């Protein structure tokens, strides 16, 4: 069903018109008025109070896990496929942390502790705004004593950001042209294969190693620089040490991540291999010398006495984080052939070196709110204590692959300190991509839920408990299904100020569905008005939210989506007769699969925003207007 051309409820004026020429908005409105839409309201010509000003804060609210332990980085947004590297980027003699989660972005955590007692503090989600493509490596490529940055030029070539600063004050150049081989041909490396660089044979020349999907390794060696100063590499062999990683069956269709480290302290570097088809980490020992390496040895699962095992595709590194003189084993789990759902939340391993081997310290080196993938926050007073708690649902459980989950963080703030603590998840499941909308739908004084799902519509869970002890019971008779598509994301709002809650539902296609409540406040009956509400299409994965962002007493429409931020439709009508005007995007770096949730968390009179996203965590954008 298409929306009517002249809806009673809303009009959409294009943001581009609004932004480029406000008079065109007026003309546009005049055109609508003259077209005979008698109920259309005049828009306010006063200057809006927008845009708000947001600051991304990783900290600011104390969050405890279910065991009462403080999460170090509660609002880093979650990690699904971390590619970490430790580098002393600021020359202060301790190791800083870089983590790539998304294509093009490297997060930077400065070590604000010490070389023996590190404390990582989030500084940026994209270090120096450098776009690294699908992978990155810090390495002193020009051997001038500071770290340069290598990354991918799409697709599958190599870009270099030369550090033109100093070891203590790095300054990176614009990306230089692709690295090339001795013949001037750009180096090609499949973008899913993360290379490594080291001076393996101790000849003063850097060696570049690229794993191939065939399980073999390309070996290049530096031959200096070209006229523009770009390093050049000559191919040494396309079958380095005749290495060919072949698992029990095939590995010929995969991806890998390589690193070298002298794990046995014998003066030469050993090779570590993570692979899409390998649940653990493989060690190929170097039984030669530094000057004459020999890696013609069988790969073994590492550590040999207790091999690690994950969902696969592990990106390994070693670092002495506690300054005790030995290197600890760390790796990010990118998720390979062994069900990445299991590692969507626990995927940054840290194993401490001991005389007897390794001891697992954590699977979440950067602890934060992380429910897996596709986090979906919603605020509500779930325990009836007068403050807003937060539910964060996910795509799929890490343990039960037949359901998603709804995690519950209770607001336990006291005077002056914002604090949440994770409690038992809600006992609601059996479906994926749970997307709750919470309100008192039957006017009995407690909160009910309408829960969107991956492909079973929006399910009505009536609260048969009390405001402080809810008991959500599925009422299948009131399921709201989409006319087509998946990923129902409901939002309840009294859009016509008639005293009952109406319903908007986003979906995978990016369209918006509108249902009018023709039942009333205690027995809602949602009748579909349009499954392409006002022809709004935000791309993919629309998530409607409503909030009075400009304080004018009516509800504005905010739409999360898969990419390119959160879209605003300011209500320039009234509470009774809204008129949504496309008004650009919210000025904050929302993640992929953005799911905004608005709340005045600091009680300063303006609405702050939390966002779920692909990473499974939450991002906190504090509104700094007040």
């Amino acid at each position, binding site marked *: 069903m298409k929306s009517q051309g002249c809806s009673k409820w809303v009009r959409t004026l294009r943001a581009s018109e609004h932004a480029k020429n406000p008079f065109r908005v007026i003309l546009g409105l005049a055109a609508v008025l003259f077209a005979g839409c008698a109920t259309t309201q005049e828009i306010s010509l006063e200057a809006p109070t927008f845009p708000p000003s947001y600051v991304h804060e990783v900290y600011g609210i104390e969050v405890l896990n279910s065991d009462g332990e403080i999460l170090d980085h509660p609002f880093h947004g979650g990690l699904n496929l971390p590619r970490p590297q430790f580098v002393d980027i600021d020359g202060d003699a301790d190791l800083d942390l870089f983590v790539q989660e998304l294509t093009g972005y490297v997060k930077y955590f400065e070590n604000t502790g010490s070389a023996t007692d590190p404390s990582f503090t989030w500084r940026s989600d994209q270090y120096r705004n450098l776009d690294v493509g699908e992978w990155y490596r810090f390495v002193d490529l020009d051997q001038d004593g500071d770290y340069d940055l290598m990354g991918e030029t799409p*697709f599958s070539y190599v870009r270099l950001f030369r550090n033109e600063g100093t070891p203590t004050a790095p300054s990176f150049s614009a990306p230089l042209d692709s690295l090339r081989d001795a013949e001037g041909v750009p180096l090609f490396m499949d973008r*899913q294969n993360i290379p490594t660089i080291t001076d393996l044979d101790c000849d003063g020349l850097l060696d570049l190693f690229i794993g191939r999907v065939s399980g073999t390794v390309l070996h290049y060696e530096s031959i200096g620089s070209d006229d523009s100063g770009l390093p050049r590499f000559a191919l040494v062999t396309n079958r380095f040490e005749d290495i060919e990683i072949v698992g029990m*069956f*095939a590995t*010929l269709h995969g991806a890998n991540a390589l690193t070298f480290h002298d794990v046995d302290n014998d003066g030469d570097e050993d090779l570590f291999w993570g692979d899409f*088809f390998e649940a653990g980490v493989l060690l190929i020992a170097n039984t030669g010398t530094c000057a004459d390496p020999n890696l013609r040895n069988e790969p073994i699962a590492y550590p040999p006495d207790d091999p690690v095992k994950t969902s696969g595709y592990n990106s390994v590194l070693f670092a002495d984080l506690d300054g005790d003189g030995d290197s600890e084993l760390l790796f990010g789990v990118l998720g390979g*052939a062994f*069900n990445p759902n299991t590692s969507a939340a626990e995927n940054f391993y840290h194993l401490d070196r001991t005389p007897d081997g390794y001891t697992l310290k954590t699977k979440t080196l950067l602890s934060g709110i992380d429910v897996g993938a596709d986090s979906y926050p919603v605020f509500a007073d779930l325990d009836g204590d007068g403050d807003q708690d937060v539910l964060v649902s996910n795509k799929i459980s890490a343990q039960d692959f037949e359901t998603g989950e709804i995690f519950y963080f209770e607001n336990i703030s006291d005077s002056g300190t914002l604090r949440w603590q994770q409690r038992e998840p809600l006992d609601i499941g059996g479906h994926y991509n749970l997307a709750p909308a919470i309100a008192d739908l039957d006017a009995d004084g407690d909160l009910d839920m309408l829960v969107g799902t991956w492909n079973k519509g929006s399910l009505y869970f009536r609260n048969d408990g009390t405001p402080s002890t809810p008991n959500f019971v599925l009422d299948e008779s009131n399921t709201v299904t989409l006319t087509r598509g998946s990923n129902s994301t409901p939002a309840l709002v009294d859009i016509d100020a008639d005293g009952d809650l109406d319903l908007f539902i986003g979906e*995978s*296609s990016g369209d918006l569905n509108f249902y009018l409540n023709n039942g009333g406040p205690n027995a809602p009956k949602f009748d579909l008005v349009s499954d392409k509400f006002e022809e709004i299409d935000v791309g993919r994965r629309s998530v409607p939210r409503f909030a009075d962002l400009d304080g004018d007493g009516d509800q504005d429409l905010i739409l999360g989506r898969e990419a390119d931020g959160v879209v605003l439709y300011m209500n320039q009508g009234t509470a009774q007769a809204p008129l949504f005007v496309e008004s650009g995007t919210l000025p904050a770096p929302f993640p992929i699969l953005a799911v905004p949730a608005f709340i005045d968390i600091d009680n300063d009179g303006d609405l702050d925003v939390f966002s779920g996203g692909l990473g499974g965590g939450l991002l906190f954008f504090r509104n700094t207007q007040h």
Partner: protein
Amino acid sequence: MIRKSSVSFALLFAAITGPALAQSMPGVFSHEVLPIIQEKFQPLLERETGLTLESWETLMAGSDHGEVVIPYDSDGSLLIRLATQLSSEDPLSMHAAHISEEDLSTVRSWIERGAPSDDGDIAYSDASNLLYACIQGAAQLTVIDMDANLVIRTIDLQELGFTADSRPHHVAVEPDGSAFYVSLIGDDAVLKFNRENELIDQVAFERPGMLVVNPAGHQLFVGRSMKAVNPPQRIGIIERESLDLEELDVFFPRPHALAIDPTGTYVYVGSLAENRMATVDYASESPELQSIEGDTHTLVQFAVSPDGQTMVVGGQLTGEFFFFDTSNPATPTLVESIKVGMAPWHPVFSPDGSVVWFGNKMGNRATVVDIAERAVVATVEGLSEPHGAAISPDGRTVYISNNNLNGAYHGRYTWQDGYLPGAIAVIDSESREITRMLEVGPNPTGLGTR
């Protein structure tokens, strides 16, 4: 018998297809080319049993092993490769030294003009049963005449502006053979070619993998390849006429295996990263998920029987082969699985639906499974990392591509720099014997035929 087109027919299209058709040069072959081949090249061709150099027809008919000349592709023609690329370790290489640059140039030039007959005929111009093979290691597509079982054309993607690492991976063909589609996993694109092998359109698509044409509709469906750390969890739905693209979320990571039911209503998608598949009613944008028990299987590729009653898929890591009852295409039901050995790759049904063929990638063999018995009834040894599979319309011949990255197939020649050619195995479906190995460029992968 060599099927050919006349010069007049060729010239009719010359303005469109450029070098794809010959110029009329009466007598050139007989007077200038054939004598050189007979005198200078013949010693190089001693292993090409069955080849006679009596005429243009016999030359273009090739040997027992396949073609020696590919029209328009001198670099890919065995004749030229023997003269220029043999390793010095190969005893035949001594004969190459006796071929002058001038003679070589004459023959090259003739091949680049399409290797025409004296009358200007171009061999296999009217071939009707075509097999398309992706040559992933050389940014090429190879066209095989399934009646002659010869390579008859080469499409060089670099000449069309794509990169050397464009990596054509899979191919799907229009039901009437009027066009075909190719996924480039290195250049992130899906290409459309017409039957004359002209590139007529393309669409950008991140990490495309398997392709399937809707036989009852106008869509092309596209899965994802491995070539990204985390490719989108969506399939592509491309309108074949316009190449307009939409993407549909299928919930799970790395959607790879892909098939469609014969009615064109349901698309089946399988994951490389978890034991899960989706049945997608694409019209309603509504996928239904389904889990498969057991260890991580890594579903490589589906095939649906011609009558639509059965679907099969192999598990790369477990070597299990699954049978689904698809009599209700909306709800495929797993009815049985059997062990079929290492890494079952792309399956293909015989036209009568009685058996399904596939290569065991790490087993260097092909396997034949009887659908009624749900049992392995034969294996064919002698392959080398078999990948794609196709079958001729009459069901008599099975084709399986061989990556041969490990060199298990040695071929008849030793090439410079240890070059390992790929190969397309031509298998008699009755005797289940390999009748010839067509040597092609490196790392052939997906095969497609109408």
